[in-house]
């Protein structure tokens, strides 16, 4: 534990967001008043490697990027599937960290839609990033991030090309919700029917967006909606969500931030710093 960090000084905190397809790292310098500067962000895709190793190495990379030694970090917080972060000090539930991160990145956020590899979660939040209501997708991976990743693989394209390609679509191919695994054959059939990759991807994006607007409606979300989670980086999905919201005439505005995919990790770091201070104050009082 870092004994030097008394209340009144700023402290370093790390957040590690372990998803089922990637691990996100954030290192932040958090001041007494809660204002923070992000020092480093790092994203490491797991791709079937040993998760403990991915976490350890990814954390070292982010320490290096921030130019910080491990001993200088006052609090390491995990979120997501964080059980494997054996060097953490505390764990925060995914929804609270995403809410915190989203409000930090995009002040004014009234709702968050966290789209990860397996689940999508919609939350309504207040200005202090407390979660007021939430709703998750069910126990089927249709329309999840993993689903999209599978489709990209079947089409032989890199994940980062999915968004830009989708934006080029002219006549999106309508797809109903299909099994994430069997989608492979549907995609193959579409390809062999001569439908362009852009139109396929856009069709899938629109079908996914439809599910998300349903989630958001069900919790009564309105105002600024921040997209977080791995799929926030997918410009095609963000556009599709905007179109859907427009089409359904819902009073919402979609917002993303270049660091949106790190919202969970940033939120964890911020909550970690907060908890560290509370604990430090208590020990001071006891002393």
């Amino acid at each position, binding site marked *: 534990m870092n004994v030097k960090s008394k209340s009144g000084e700023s402290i370093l905190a790390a957040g590690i967001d372990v998803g089922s397809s990637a691990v996100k790292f954030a290192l932040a310098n958090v001041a007494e008043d809660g204002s923070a500067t992000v020092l480093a962000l790092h994203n490491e895709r797991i791709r079937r490697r040993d998760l403990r190793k991915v976490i350890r190495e990814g954390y070292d990379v982010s320490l290096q990027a921030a130019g910080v030694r491990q001993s200088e970090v006052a609090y390491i917080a995990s979120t997501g599937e964080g059980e494997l972060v054996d060097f953490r000090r505390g764990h925060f539930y995914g929804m609270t960290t995403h809410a915190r991160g989203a409000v930090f990145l995009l002040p004014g956020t009234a709702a968050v839609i966290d789209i990860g590899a397996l689940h999508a979660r919609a939350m309504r939040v207040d200005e202090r990033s407390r979660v007021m209501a939430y709703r998750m997708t069910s126990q089927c991976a249709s329309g999840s991030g993993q689903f999209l990743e599978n489709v990209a693989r079947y089409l032989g394209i890199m*994940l980062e090309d999915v968004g830009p390609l989708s934006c080029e679509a002219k006549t999106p191919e309508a797809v109903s919700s299909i099994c994430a695994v069997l989608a492979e054959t549907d995609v193959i059939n579409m390809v062999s029917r001569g439908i362009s990759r852009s139109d396929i991807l856009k069709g899938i994006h629109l079908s996914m967006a439809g599910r998300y607007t349903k989630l958001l409606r069900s919790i009564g979300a309105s105002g600024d909606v921040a997209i977080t989670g791995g799929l926030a980086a997918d410009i095609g999905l963000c556009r599709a969500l905007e179109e859907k919201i427009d089409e359904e005439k819902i009073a919402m505005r979609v917002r993303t931030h270049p660091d949106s995919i790190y919202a969970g990790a940033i939120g964890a770091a911020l909550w970690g710093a907060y908890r560290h201070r509370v604990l430090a104050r208590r020990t001071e009082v006891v002393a």
Partner: protein
Amino acid sequence: MSVVEVLLGIDLGSTTTKAVALDRTGRVIGRGITNTRSNYEVASQIVREEALVQSRFELVRHAMEADPELSGIENKFIGSLVRNFRQRQHLEQLESLESALHHGADAPRYAAQYDSIQDALNNICQVMRLRVPGHFSELAVRKSDFFRDLAAADYMQAAEQFSNPKHARFDVLCGLFDAAILVVENAAGDRAFERHAAPALDQTLAVAPADIRGREAKLRAAVESVRSLELRVLGMVGTGYGRQRLPFPKEQIRSEILCHGLGAHTMFAGTRTVLDIGGQDTKAIQVDGNGIVTSFQMNDRCAAGCGRYLGYIADEMNLGLHELGNLALESTCSVKINSTCTVFAGAELRDRLSLGQKVPDILAGLHRAIMLRAMSLLARSGGISDEFTFTGGVARNPAAVSALQGLVQQNYGVRKLNISPESIYTGALGAALFAQRAAEAGNAP
């Protein structure tokens, strides 16, 4: 040039495409299988070619059996010939994979790391080449028969070794492979027997034991006579999931339910109930004494309960489909899987692994899960009557079979369970038999 007439049945599955070649008498002389999925036209070309290649090997066997000087050594000789042949095919595909990889890495986005990526690819391909003979040695246990699976396993292993986080990221190398393998899979290797048979024969003879080498001249003549044969396809019938996309006319297409019914009846005449678990269809079929379908049920559009479920799990664990069942059989205490969805089961598997649960126990649970879904389908189709035939790719999986046996015993009592090692070809066999019937009736499809 002499001619051999054959009839073909092609089963375009969602995971694999199968072909069966019959001679005029209805005897199976060749089978072909491919995992090419991205294009049905290419897939049916590849299996057609594969089945004809196998037919030629079978004809070599027939020729050897008929010759008193050669009979007795045919298994040994053809086994070695086939291994050398496959190795040449594999090397050829590896070469095209390598050029596709380099081509992919030429993209402008990699310009900054161009040299590092090309170096990494060179090193990876070098390692892959060195591993090829091991895959095709006499005692080798291959985890899959498909180029994609063998190449992917070797590639990923080497890529982890030669990647580095700055200039040749693991992620980038994986992406390059995913794109390159599609190029390789979509190239139908043409006239494979004609091209590879002679060099494979040389290779075989070069290291053959004395009893084979002593008969070199006769063996060469036997292979050469088959090589110069014309295999004339008299008729062809297609079935399976992708049959609507088959590149042949409507009269040449039969539903897979009919084909599986007829195929199962032909393999086991006493069959009354058929369970077929294929890539993405699970079918429970009831047939009468003539192989005519009386009732059937199929699963919904969901991978849970189909072969793809196990395929996905195998991919998830970097295992070949062949290995999955045997590993599961080592289980001592099967785990109960909570997820229904395949993708979620994959995530559950990873969670359980990281919690230290044993691979065989988890796999046993996964096999039981898929069979439980099959049981409910069977019940809806009218239960299980004696005899019960299990077909489709999953019937090759010993853990799936043992889970099924347990459940059948529990729910229906004693039933004779028929399983053929060639059960994956049941649909294609049914299709080929339809082609043969049409040819006999004088209107070859």
